């Protein structure tokens, strides 16, 4: 168990910047999820924490101690890889044993620890089997046992569930979170699946192009995305975006575009007028309505029934796709004209030039 700090980490491969000026702290016992599309630098970051890749510059600290130059085993980390990598010719027991072979522990202590780790993830009856005789989920559990048996300072998981089928992924997700809370170890979990990130993380770090876009609790990331990328990447169905300008009239702030005029209240009410702006609104904060100046004219493109609600996918006036949540069972022929409204207080405003959320001066 340890507090892991990354200070101004840079990693370049030739001319390619894999990770740029990354600052991040993972608290002791915390589960941090690194989320991002492939190639965003999340796996490289994890490899640097593990000691498998040397950073070009910057420091990595475990509990305040600089470990940047230390090898993986000196850092006392454990790692679970994609598709639950195991040595294919060794039994489950021997795979777990390899984690402790060089630990200097006595034979009895090692066996006791293996038994305990196997018990923790419920694989005692599988210890004699070869990896090829195990199912995907069982391999995953053995890989987890192999990791926790070391009682590591940090527990790193690189997309460990991505090769499994959906239902298994669902149950193992909960198992891993439960395990992490039970053994209270610091855990970094890398994934490109935003649902996995939302459901597992104490905090989520969203990465893109080698940069940390935003780090925060799942609720924070979902409700208060700091950049356009985070807003579009996190949340299913994804956030809707509308282009327009910000104008002040009658002492109120308005979002105006050729088909819509909505009053902006709440957090962004104090924003300065601007020519170009992108407004983001979550589909479940929009509802179908009568026509009107504050209602967005839409054309139904497709409807997805989810059982408890329906996602109405529409073509917007500027050709963009707009998703609106409607009551379960809502139907309309494709091509039907509908309208949708939303509350200007729940929208988020982004500057298209910086792609960041609009800065608002705090009103006194």
């Amino acid at each position, binding site marked *: 168990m340890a507090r892991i700090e990354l200070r101004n980490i840079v990693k370049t491969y030739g001319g390619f910047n894999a990770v740029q000026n990354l600052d991040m702290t993972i608290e002791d016992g915390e589960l941090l999820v690194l989320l991002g599309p492939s190639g965003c630098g999340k796996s490289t970051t994890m490899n640097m924490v593990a000691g498998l890749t040397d950073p070009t510059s910057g420091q990595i600290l475990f509990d305040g101690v600089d470990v940047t130059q230390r090898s993986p*085993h000196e850092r006392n*980390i454990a*790692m679970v890889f994609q598709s639950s*990598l195991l*040595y294919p010719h060794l039994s489950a027991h021997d795979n777990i044993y*390899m984690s402790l*072979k*060089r630990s200097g522990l006595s034979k009895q202590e090692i066996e006791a620890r293996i038994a305990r780790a196997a018990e923790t993830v419920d694989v005692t009856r599988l210890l004699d089997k070869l990896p090829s005789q195990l199912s995907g989920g069982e391999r995953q559990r053995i890989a987890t046992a192999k990791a926790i048996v070391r009682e590591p300072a940090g527990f790193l998981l*690189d997309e460990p569930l991505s090769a499994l089928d959906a239902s298994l992924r669902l149950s193992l997700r909960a198992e891993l979170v439960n395990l992490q809370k039970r053994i209270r170890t610091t855990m970094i979990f890398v994934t490109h699946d935003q649902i996995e990130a939302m459901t597992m993380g104490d905090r989520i770090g969203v990465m893109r192009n080698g940069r940390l876009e935003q780090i925060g609790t799942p609720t924070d990331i979902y409700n208060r995305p700091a950049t356009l990328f985070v807003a579009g990447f996190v949340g299913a169905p994804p956030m809707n975006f509308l282009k327009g300008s910000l104008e002040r009239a009658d002492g109120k702030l308005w979002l105006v575009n050729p088909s819509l005029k909505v009053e902006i209240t709440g957090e962004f009410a104090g924003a300065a007028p601007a020519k170009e702006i992108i407004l983001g609104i979550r589909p479940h904060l929009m509802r179908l309505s009568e026509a009107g100046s504050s209602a967005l004219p839409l054309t139904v493109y497709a409807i997805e029934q989810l059982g408890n609600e329906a996602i109405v996918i529409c073509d917007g006036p500027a050709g963009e796709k707009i998703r609106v949540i409607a009551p379960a069972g809502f139907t309309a022929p494709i091509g039907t004209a509908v309208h949708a409204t939303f509350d200007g207080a729940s929208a988020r405003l982004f500057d298209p030039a910086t792609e960041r959320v609009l800065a608002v001066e705090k009103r006194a």
Partner: protein
Amino acid sequence: MADNVSSKRAAGAQRPAEISTFSFALIVSIPVLLFLLIVVAYPLAYAFYLSFNEIRFFGGYSADWVGFQNYAKVFYDQSFWSSLSKTFRFTIETVILTLGVGLGLALILKHLPGKWRWLRALIILPWAVSPYGAGIFFAYLGRGQTGVGTAVAAMFGSSQTINLISARFVIEYLAVGAAWNMAPLVAFFLLANMLTTPQRLYDLAKIDRMSRLETFWHVTLPPLRFTIFVFTCITTVLAMKTFDYIFTETQGGPGGASSVLTYTLYKISFVNLDLGYGAAMSFFLLAVILVSTGILYFLWGRKEERQ
């Protein structure tokens, strides 16, 4: 329900009957089977017939039935036993060298830096040389007057001629040449195998603090083991039946020092024209090859198959 089944049957009867997988396999392999019958089965049967006869060419061709006499004679033939031991010596050395060099080459090729990777394609070239050509090539390299031994000695200022094809080490020298010829192919297959091992497994080994040797043993080697077994068998058979390479390189010499079983057979059958006796002895070679590969399979191959 019953109607349904019978109507299906009726529909089936109208279509031309499908042939079974076995019949299809038989039909497509008939040309090959015929070919094998002509070039393998017939000569083999004829050799079997010859081995029970004494064949004479002097004073007109004659074949006299002698029963198992030719086979019995082999047991008392000193040159058979000495040829057999040379065959084993050549085979064991060739197999170990070929597999060892092949594995080494594959490891080097795997770790080639990006701009040298084209060497992977070039390395196959020695295998493209026919054993016949390799024999001529290594004969010149080994001789005192033209060989590398003398050239290296001259580099150090010595005027001595060093002959690599000496009675004492000619088998070893032959094995080196045979390995040179075959190892690139082994390297090629082992390299292909190695490249399927995920890089992440090496990361796992690092985290587990494995030594280089342990990493080789637990990560690099396991996926190669079956290929190594297959090539051990192939190289064993090839080495035991090698003839052209030795014929062009040493002609069984110096003296009879490299007269392996195939070369002795050639001399008996085609120089001395003792066809019946040669045929009998050649069945001993066949038995040796079958037994050797059989032992390899039972002691090693079955274990690799189960994984």
